[in-house]
């Protein structure tokens, strides 16, 4: 490159351009070039993030012969929706889709309610033992679901609820997965000024009235974050359905997706990818529309509060 770059000797690091005095216009031109190079780097880096989804959607439209071709085709030469038909004939896929959807919706609404109530009470109401109870609840943050899966399976089995959706609904709403939501709601209410609530009390609202009419509407952003990561968590749940469910009619989507295999146990790629596309695209579409909320909500859950 040009002589206006001096490399600082620093082993194991990329050459560091150090600015030396030079005419303004040349500096700007060089920066423009660097910037475009960086854009190219970003474009290359985004391939492994974007390409699999593209590949999934296009391959689901290819016949098996084209899928197995050595040098891949970027676009199906002879697109057909055959695989999509077989998605529904090989398994009760519509039923499984409904299972995932209604479970995720119920878990999301239930978690929002439970977390808003508990978060509000822990943040606002003084009652003896509140701190001890909060610490007890926080234990859930320390327990990966794999640790308790054996005893939970035992409990579910004893109650005769194996191969039902109850454990996939009740445990997430009340158990460890809800704790993060409680924590986030409590943090939110702690940071909320109390004046509006006090005004509500002066207007004669009781505690429940203040909660429903004032606190909950004000907490829409935090509830949105809770809703997004709770829904995705339920929608993606895998270990628990694999452990609890045994009949195809009761399967949820992640488990169902792995079942598209031929008589020899080999995957039927185009059918499997068609089912996967049907699972992924709606969520991706919602993400593209409500991107800001998704990023914020998931960043919350990523940081665990």
């Amino acid at each position, binding site marked *: 490159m040009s002589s206006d770059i001096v490399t600082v000797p620093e082993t194991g690091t990329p050459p560091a351009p150090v600015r030396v005095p030079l005419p303004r216009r040349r500096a700007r031109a060089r920066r423009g070039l660097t910037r475009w190079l960086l854009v190219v780097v970003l474009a290359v880096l985004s391939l492994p993030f974007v390409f699999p989804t593209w590949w999934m959607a296009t391959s689901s439209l290819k016949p098996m012969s084209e899928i197995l071709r050595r040098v891949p085709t970027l676009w199906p030469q002879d697109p057909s929706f055959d695989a999509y038909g077989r998605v529904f004939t090989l398994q009760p896929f519509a039923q499984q889709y409904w299972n995932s959807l209604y479970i995720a919706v119920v878990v999301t609404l239930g978690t929002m309610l439970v977390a808003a109530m508990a978060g509000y009470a822990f943040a606002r109401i003084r009652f003896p033992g509140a701190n001890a109870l909060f610490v007890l609840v926080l234990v859930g943050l320390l327990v990966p679901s794999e640790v308790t899966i054996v005893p939970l399976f035992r409990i579910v089995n004893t109650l005769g609820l194996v191969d039902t959706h109850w454990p996939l609904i*009740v445990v997430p709403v009340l158990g460890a997965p809800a704790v993060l939501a409680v924590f986030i709601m409590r943090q939110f209410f702690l940071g909320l000024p109390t004046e509006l609530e006090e005004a509500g009390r002066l207007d004669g609202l009781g505690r429940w009235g203040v909660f429903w009419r004032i606190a909950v509407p004000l907490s829409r952003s935090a509830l949105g974050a809770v809703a997004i990561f709770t829904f995705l968590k339920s929608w993606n749940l895998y270990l628990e359905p694999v452990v609890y469910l045994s009949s195809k009619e009761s399967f949820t989507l992640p488990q169902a997706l792995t079942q598209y295999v031929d008589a020899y146990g080999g995957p039927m790629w185009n059918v499997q990818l068609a089912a996967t596309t049907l699972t992924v695209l709606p969520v991706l579409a919602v993400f593209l529309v409500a991107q800001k909320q998704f990023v914020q909500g998931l960043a919350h859950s990523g940081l665990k509060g």
Partner: protein
Amino acid sequence: MAASAAVRRDRLVGYTMVAPVVLGSLAFVVLPLVMVVWYSLHEWNVLANTFTFVGAENYQRMVADPGLADALRATVWFSIGLVVVNIALALLLAVLLNQRLPGTTTFRTFFFSPVVVSLVAWTIVWSFLLQADGGINGFLSVLGVEGPNWLRRPEAAMAAVIIVQVFKNVGLNMILFLAALQGVPEELQEAARLDGAGAWRRFRSVTLPLISPTVLLVSIITIVGSLEVFAQIDVLTGGGPGSSTTVLVYYLYQQAFRFNEFGYASAIAVLLFVIVLVLTLLQWQSRKRWVFHEL
């Protein structure tokens, strides 16, 4: 001292509001934790219908079990590989996105999008791409490189599991780093620039020290998360080839639900819990320092 009626009523509301999650924690967190410790002291095979108190025998078995040693080794490799690649890539992406380049929002969307894709779906697509004659090797052959049979060779399989997981979730860490980067004062960068520091030097001497608490925190969170990897392994490799990708959680699952060794699986669960506990306490410790740093 008797509380007034209003105060008592308020307390009652408080108890009612926390009741669901408190009772739920007792039933689905605390009780199972006690149970799992209790089970770990028993020889319990579900098929054979045995349930005998054996004291610490399961723990002694763990010490002598080569399968568990393999699983721990695989877990360490997986966690280290994941955290190194993930943090490095997340930092790189965050720094690039922080340059106010054209198209930044689009690229951010690209990098983040796998986070919202179902994990099993993402893994299935990658397993398709990673077949011996799949898209990745097809792409490599165009470049003149002969790719390995990713999922049938031990080292390649471990690398594949790590890579698939990194691309899935690195967007989340990228966002956390991006937020930290945007908190680095512009004046400090400018001062370093006037002192003649190049881009790399500014990053290493100004930016990195300022965001290092975030890097530490995110690293620990990523390690804890890496211990809970199950679906990826199950779909991509089934723990294989051999036991090369059988991490601790997968070993636990196999012992419990393949071999019906509930007692032994419970002892492994206790080990997993202790490891996660130590790491999480470490995380809270580092969070305290982080908060202090911000003050």
